[in-house]
């Protein structure tokens, strides 16, 4: 299948103002339009449609070893990116056919046909035979496994019951019945004999939980998995747990914690991280969350001096460039890269919701650090370097001043940002006088109250 068709015929693509595609393989990737194409309600978490992306589907998807992850991501891309909808759904269909998830297959075919219809191409017929066969097979296998389970339970052999539940869960997971799978995985809880069993159970529950989108549930079991004493292959496990914890923290908006999680993953164990993540994702997530939440010194000590993470970064040269540019205070270059990769990242299944917030945080950090060494700055130059217009910058800076992140004031007339001189001494005087007055009043309040009590003057029900 031709993945990277130039998108000349999908007419309503955004303005073609891309600053030159320097993507993974620039020659074939469509031009990166100037991102966030209008229709995104930023704060409303509305569904963002990416009208153009530089993503190379096949290479991107090949990073994921787990089939479920591949399908989920492809479907997500098909959902969010009209230009890639056809290719992504087609790829997804091939993958889904190897599972027994008939519902998902039908979904994917519908998506594909929508896209084909829009491109006025012949639609693909549904493979009714496969659907029917799969459905039957699933039903048969479910029944078989259930009856097996029943006999295990009758014999009450712990290990077999656990295996029975796990098999049934696996089967349902494969067939796309996630909540059913979760139910059966959870039931194995009572039949776990060894630490490995508990760990297996936890991991399966976490995987299913995250697939459903129930991150809180996954978190509970993750904590459980973490607390297993002396687990087999501790090092590998801790990397895996860190990767999961990272996603969960990112999802809940705890970017700083998430960054720490991602940065603690060892490159040697890149192959055992959470199934739905690729090592590339670790680099992207880690770099962006770290940029958004770390101080400069922390960036240096925890990112640039982190040999494991450096190796992850090698996988994503753009991200690495972005990080280094930021650290070298080349904000223009850094923000340029951010604008360029934004569309691709919006197609990431975990990152998309947080991308705007994270990028805004990074911008704020950039503005703060840009201004840090100066007494006064010409805002025209500053805007040029920070990749925005002066009035936009003025708004951003005003917000930062209000938040107390920049100690400065804006000379809006001359478009100059000046450091605010605070007179510590007079502030101290003013503050202490205020405090003295407050204390005096508090004392008065207490004494009056005490006197009232002493004289038994208490507001109470009227005596008759």
């Amino acid at each position, binding site marked *: 299948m031709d993945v990277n068709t130039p998108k000349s015929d999908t007419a309503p693509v955004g303005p073609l103002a891309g600053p030159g595609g320097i993507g993974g393989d620039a020659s074939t990737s469509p031009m990166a339009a100037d991102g966030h194409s209008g229709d995104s309600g930023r704060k409303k978490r509305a569904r963002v449609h990416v009208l153009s992306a530089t993503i190379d589907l096949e290479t991107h998807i090949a990073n994921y070893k787990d089939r479920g992850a591949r399908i989920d991501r492809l479907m997500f891309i098909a959902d969010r990116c009209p230009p890639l909808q056809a290719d992504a759904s087609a790829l997804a269909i091939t993958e889904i056919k190897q599972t027994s998830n008939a519902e998902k297959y039908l979904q994917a075919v519908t998506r594909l046909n929508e896209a084909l219809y829009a491109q006025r191409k012949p639609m693909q017929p549904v493979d009714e035979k496969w659907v029917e066969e799969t459905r039957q097979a699933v039903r048969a296998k479910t029944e078989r496994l259930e009856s097996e389970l029943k006999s295990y339970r009758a014999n009450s052999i712990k290990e077999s019951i656990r295996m029975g539940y796990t098999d049934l869960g696996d089967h349902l997971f494969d067939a796309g019945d996630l909540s059913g799978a979760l139910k059966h995985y959870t039931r194995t809880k009572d039949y776990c004999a060894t630490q490995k069993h508990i760990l297996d159970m936890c991991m399966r529950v976490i995987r299913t939980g995250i697939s459903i989108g129930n991150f809180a549930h996954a978190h509970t079991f993750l904590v459980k998995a973490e607390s297993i004493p002396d687990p087999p292959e501790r090092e590998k496990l801790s990397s895996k747990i860190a990767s999961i914890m990272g996603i969960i923290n990112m999802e809940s908006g705890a970017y700083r914690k998430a960054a720490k999680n991602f940065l603690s993953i060892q490159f040697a164990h890149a192959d055992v991280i959470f199934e739905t993540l690729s090592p590339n994702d670790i680099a992207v997530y880690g770099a962006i969350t770290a940029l958004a939440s770390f101080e400069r010194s922390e960036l240096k000590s925890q990112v640039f001096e982190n040999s494991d993470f450096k190796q992850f970064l090698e996988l994503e040269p753009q991200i690495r460039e972005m990080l280094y540019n930021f650290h070298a205070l080349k904000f223009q270059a850094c923000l340029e890269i951010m604008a360029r990769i934004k569309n691709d990242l919006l197609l990431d299944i975990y990152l998309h919701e947080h991308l705007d917030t994270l990028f805004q945080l990074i911008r704020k950090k950039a503005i703060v650090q840009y201004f840090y060494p100066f007494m006064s700055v010409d805002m025209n130059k500053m805007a040029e370097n920070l990749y925005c217009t002066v009035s936009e910058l003025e708004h951003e800076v*005003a917000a930062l*001043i*209000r938040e107390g992140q920049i100690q400065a*004031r*804006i*000379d*809006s*007339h*001359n478009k100059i940002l*000046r450091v605010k*001189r605070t*007179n510590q*001494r*007079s502030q101290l*005087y*003013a503050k202490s*006088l205020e405090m*003295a007055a407050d*204390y*005096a*009043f*508090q*004392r*008065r*309040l*207490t*004494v*009056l*109250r*005490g*006197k*009232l*009590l002493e*004289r038994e*003057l*208490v*507001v*109470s*029900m009227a005596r008759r």
Partner: protein
Amino acid sequence: MDQLLSILLQNRGGSPAEGSHLQNVSDEHQRTVYKALAATSTYVLASPTSSNDDPLSLLDPRTNTLAFAMILTARIKHSPSSSLLLAHALTFAQRFDPRQLVVAPQELPAVGEAIILCADAARCRRAAVRPLQLICLRLNATPVSGNTVGMSAVDLDEYAFNVIAGNVSQSGVHLTPLHVQFLKVCLLAKNYKIARTVLDVPITDFASPVAPIAAVQDFLLYHYYGGLVHIGNKRFQAAQQFFEICLNAPSTVPSAIQIESYKRLVLVSLLLKGEMTALPKSVAPIVLRSCRSQAAAYLEFASAFASLSHTRAAAKAQQFAERFHADKTLGLVQQCLADIVRRKIQQLTSTYLTLSLGDIARSVGLVDASVPIEVAEAEAEAHVLQMIESGRVLATISHADGGMVSFHDVAESFDSLATTEKLERELASAAAADLDARDLDRKISLSREYLQRITQDKSKAASSTLDDDQV
């Protein structure tokens, strides 16, 4: 009546008008006089002498305070509209001697009520203000246990002037029902300025031997009225304190006065701080709870205000307009609404050094589709001008650059002699307060109740540990 009068007048001849060595004797004498007066019916008290003289013109309130008070009360109750009575009341207020009233603590409040009654009957509420003010001033200025020579009315006015100038700091000021009456009269007469002469002396106690307050309601009312007066004088900080004191009174049930105080406290806090500040922890939880539920409209308005969105706040004000109107808080609410814009402008000063009037109008939300930009700019300018005049911001407006406002830093640098003086004054008052607190602490720790409680608790604690051991 003639008989009575002769006793009184004769007594004046016998007892020295002034002189401390005879204080005790005169106390006893006062008691007998009081007994005689109390035994006389009000009808008799209210009647003129046989020679048709006015007994009040014969008596001197300085020496016969008690008799004068009781006769005045009786007369007013009998025929409140008599024109001479207000003049008599004023004489009384100017010259009465509080020490002589110690034997009959309920008489002075009665006089106060009578004066109000009299003024009402004359359809001139304002007439009651001055006598009551003088009475309160004298009570405030005269430490009851002390032995000061009575001040003349002129002295009292000087004292009042000093109070307003903030030069009076004294202890042992007792709250009396007269204070409450005075404030009420001031409020009704809308004469807020004069109330300051009394309000600005902080109350420290409420067991004046002359006229102790009978119920906690007087305490609550005094501080509620006081808060209202302070609002009238636009002294919101003081108003906030008064309302807080009112809410802080020990309570087992919420009082309606407290709830009304809370409503106004919310609005005053908005004007001062921009949000509802936390109340002291000692406020009874039950009071707080019922205040919150009773004043829900105010809290909603407060949260709209805190968002500094004029439209939101105005919408809330509109929504609860009837409520606010019924509570008579509409004026304060309007002031809050006007304050939002100024508060926003004030925020801008910390962010900007210069900003054009147009930008100011835009960022505080004066601009909308229906308002042309020139009008909005003019409005913004008016606000800024008003704020400069009231000293809330330090700024200059330049029309040369098309209406540019430059904000300046606060000039107060705390390096003048006045600062040192102020600091010293503050330190002295803090030290005095500290001494007071220590005294109180000592007194409490030596009090019988405290010691009893302590020993009880100890024995209880000891017995409970014993029980544990036995188990």
